[in-house]
């Protein structure tokens, strides 16, 4: 009978590149930047890495196919290296591979690295691309902002929230994230913004304006994982262990069946329920110390508060406006600035989220350090579209908690 992942795997070290418009760097340069930090943080050498996972989603834009690019950039030593892709949850997917390898006893030390170099398309926003030969015949002509904007009208209609109030709550989310990003030297955007600026910004996909959308950027992040025993044997203390690692994937119900009302993520709710069970968390609103969610768009963050069972259904707007999720609120969300300030180099984002949870757990988050000592940190990393997607929920925390 499976017993879950709780406390079976510890994070030995992590690294994260500076995210931004890295015009002077290839994907290789970004990978090595994140990796060298992780190596130093972990205290190991390349020869000790036994298995590796590479997460990258739009590989045709930069490194190309297979896991070979990772092995070549890092000079991994002819070990098993796997490339994974699961839309924008690819970073977490790489982490899953590495964690399960260690938890299964297949290896002692594994690496997960995510990278994406998106700024070579020649235009802003995610590149337009084929959705697959059959999908191209029938899918709507949708950008990412347009797809996630669907949540707004459905949410407003379901909960009777006037469009203006929803827009203001969405604006608060972005303002809050920028306040946090301003304190993060690795973030792409470090400017503070205000609610009026967000409310009056040019429209991208109604009702999402410019500041409701995260940008595209270049970046890489990586994690080295091992068993708690091995970590302790290397002299590590105050271990950050994996408490839960859950994923849920749409099966067509949202896209084709009228049981889904368009205002939430079926997948996130399924993954969150399993994650809390796996981590032994009964009251997430009380027990989760802080979390990162996939704030590709402010509306995604808004509904995710409810999908993670931290805000009650229909209650996200009130919590947001009360500052519940602000850096000095009860349960800070995006305390590092989120996708909003880092941008979204797709393969890297899931690992960048974990990087902040890891730093916070170790008291190393500098200006952003939460004074109240965090016990459980959670990341939500989602890819696809509200009506068909992959949603991952990862919980890390102090060993034994």
């Amino acid at each position, binding site marked *: 009978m499976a017993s879950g992942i709780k406390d079976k795997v510890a994070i030995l070290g992590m690294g994260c590149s500076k995210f931004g418009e890295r015009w002077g760097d290839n994907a290789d340069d970004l990978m090595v930047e994140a990796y060298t930090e992780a190596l130093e943080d972990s205290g190991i050498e390349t020869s000790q890495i036994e298995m590796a996972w590479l997460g990258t989603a739009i590989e045709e834009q930069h490194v190309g196919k297979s896991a070979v690019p990772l092995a070549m950039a890092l000079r991994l030593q002819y070990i098993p290296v796997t490339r994974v892709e699961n839309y924008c949850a690819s970073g977490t997917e790489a982490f899953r591979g590495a964690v399960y390898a260690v938890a299964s006893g297949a290896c002692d030390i594994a690496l997960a690295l995510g990278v994406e170099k998106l700024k070579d398309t020649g235009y802003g926003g995610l590149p337009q691309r084929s959705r697959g*030969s059959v999908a191209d015949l029938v899918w709507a002509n*949708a950008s990412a902002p347009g*797809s996630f904007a*669907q949540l707004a*009208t459905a949410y407003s*209609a379901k909960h009777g929230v006037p469009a203006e109030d929803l827009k203001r709550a969405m604006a608060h989310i972005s303002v809050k994230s920028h306040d946090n990003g301003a304190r993060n030297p690795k973030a792409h955007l470090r400017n503070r913004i205000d609610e009026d600026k967000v409310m009056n910004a040019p429209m991208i*996909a109604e009702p999402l304006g410019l500041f409701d959308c995260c940008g595209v950027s270049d970046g890489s992040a990586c994690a080295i994982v091992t068993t708690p025993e091995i970590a302790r044997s290397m002299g590590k203390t105050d271990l950050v262990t994996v408490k839960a690692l859950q994923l849920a994937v749409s099966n067509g119900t949202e896209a*084709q069946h*009228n*049981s889904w009302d368009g205002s939430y993520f079926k997948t996130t709710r399924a993954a969150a329920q399993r994650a809390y069970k796996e981590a032994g968390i009964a009251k997430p609103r009380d027990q989760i110390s802080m979390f990162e969610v996939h704030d590709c768009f402010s509306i995604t963050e808004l509904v995710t508060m409810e999908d993670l069972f931290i805000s009650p259904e229909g209650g996200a707007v009130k919590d947001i406006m009360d500052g519940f999720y602000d850096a000095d609120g009860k349960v800070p969300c995006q305390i590092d600035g989120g996708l909003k300030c880092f941008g979204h180099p797709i393969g890297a984002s899931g690992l960048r989220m974990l990087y902040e949870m890891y730093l916070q757990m170790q008291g190393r988050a500098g200006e952003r350090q939460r004074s109240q000592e965090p016990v459980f940190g959670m990341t939500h990393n989602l890819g696809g579209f509200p009506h068909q997607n992959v949603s991952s929920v990862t919980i890390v925390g102090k060993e034994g908690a």
Partner: protein
Amino acid sequence: MEVGILRFGGYVPQSRLQRAEILKAHGWFNPGLRGLAKGERAMANWDEDPITMAFEASRDCLAGRDRDDISALYMASTSFPFLDRQNAGVVASALDLGSGVQTIDLASSQRAGTSALSVALKTAASGDGPILVAASEKRRAKAASPLEMTSGDGAAALLVGTGDLAAKLIGAHTETTDFVDHFRSEESEYDYTWEERWVRDEGYMKIVPSAVSALLEKTGVAASDISRFCFPAANVRVAGGIAKALGIAPEAVADTLQATCGEAGTAHALILLVHALESAKPGDRILVASFGQGCDALLFEATEAVANGKGASGVSGHLARRFAETNYAKFQSFNGLVTMERGIRSEIDKNTGLSTHHRNVAMTQGFVGGKCTKCGTNQFPKSNICVNPNCNAVGTQVDEPFADKAAQVNSYTADQLTYSPNPPNYFGMIQFEGGGRLLSDFTDVFADSKIEVGMPMKMMFRVKDYDEARGFRRYFWKAAPRA
């Protein structure tokens, strides 16, 4: 057996370009356009073409009627999207007519529409099954040409055969002559037109009365007994002049719809015929004639049941569904008259694998989904495993048509970021009455449309993408506001 018209329908695109706007753009160059710059002309949306319009006219014509007995579909146009890939066949697939139907394209003349009707009536007289005739046109015209002013985009469809006739055919006559008033060849991009006075004096005024006289003599009907004379020429004095020459009463001359629609090429004679039938009284004698290297003339008599033949909205209904477009630059862009900077986003390859297309044509063009025979859930697309979370049965779905299902908006957005020839691209989750849903592109959303959750929509057959690199286009369905 008595043969005639069983059903009649039409389609005119919703957008009506104000001719005054065309004049504003071109009056400096051709002041002569001033005389033509009254009223409005029908302007197809970027995603409409003669195939999509022929479909909408056909659907309008057949509304509520079973389609199983239809033996043939004849489509007439001088602006077919495809020169070798049967256009009528695409329309037939969208109508879900099945494979046992004779599909034929008729082209190359401004009287191809009436010729199609004439041949269909002859063939259907045998009683082997009604024939659907669709004529559809989206003529290309050079900027600042009179043709740009006087043309309109549109389509008409008539179901002809034996049985419960809305209008019976009294007789038909054709004159053929190589009178080249204008031409367009394989080498031309646009029409080449000769002097209007000569076309009128030597063409219209000589060829048409000759053909119509022959018809009246053949059928023993007096010109004074004609209740409605449908002649499609844009210049209204032409129809009036022909009527006078023949002895047809001036009040019988049908409105050419120049002020509200424009002349829709080879479809226009049939558009006028349908329009006349929509207001016909039993016993009315309706004569329709066309002009294009000769003349086809057909005479019909409305029966007691003429009102039963009317399509869902008809030409009149579609004329009433209207948006006054004042942006001539948009017309130029939609019609390839100007080179637009479309941005790098537009460079994505729109290739269609033809084997993939064929395998999925019932889904993409027929809009056929599935119904699970175990739990009754309607779903789009049809799939191997039922989507109902309480069912998930394997291999239980049968074909379920979705094209005519009523729909409503569940969520929506106006997407400014994705590339669209007509930004922003409206799209959203559409739910169908009776089950099933689709995240669907919207179309025919105009400045005065107010899109909201819950609003009723209908599905329309449209161009999904133009593959400019290969000269292909693919079709699918989009949701439009249902008035």
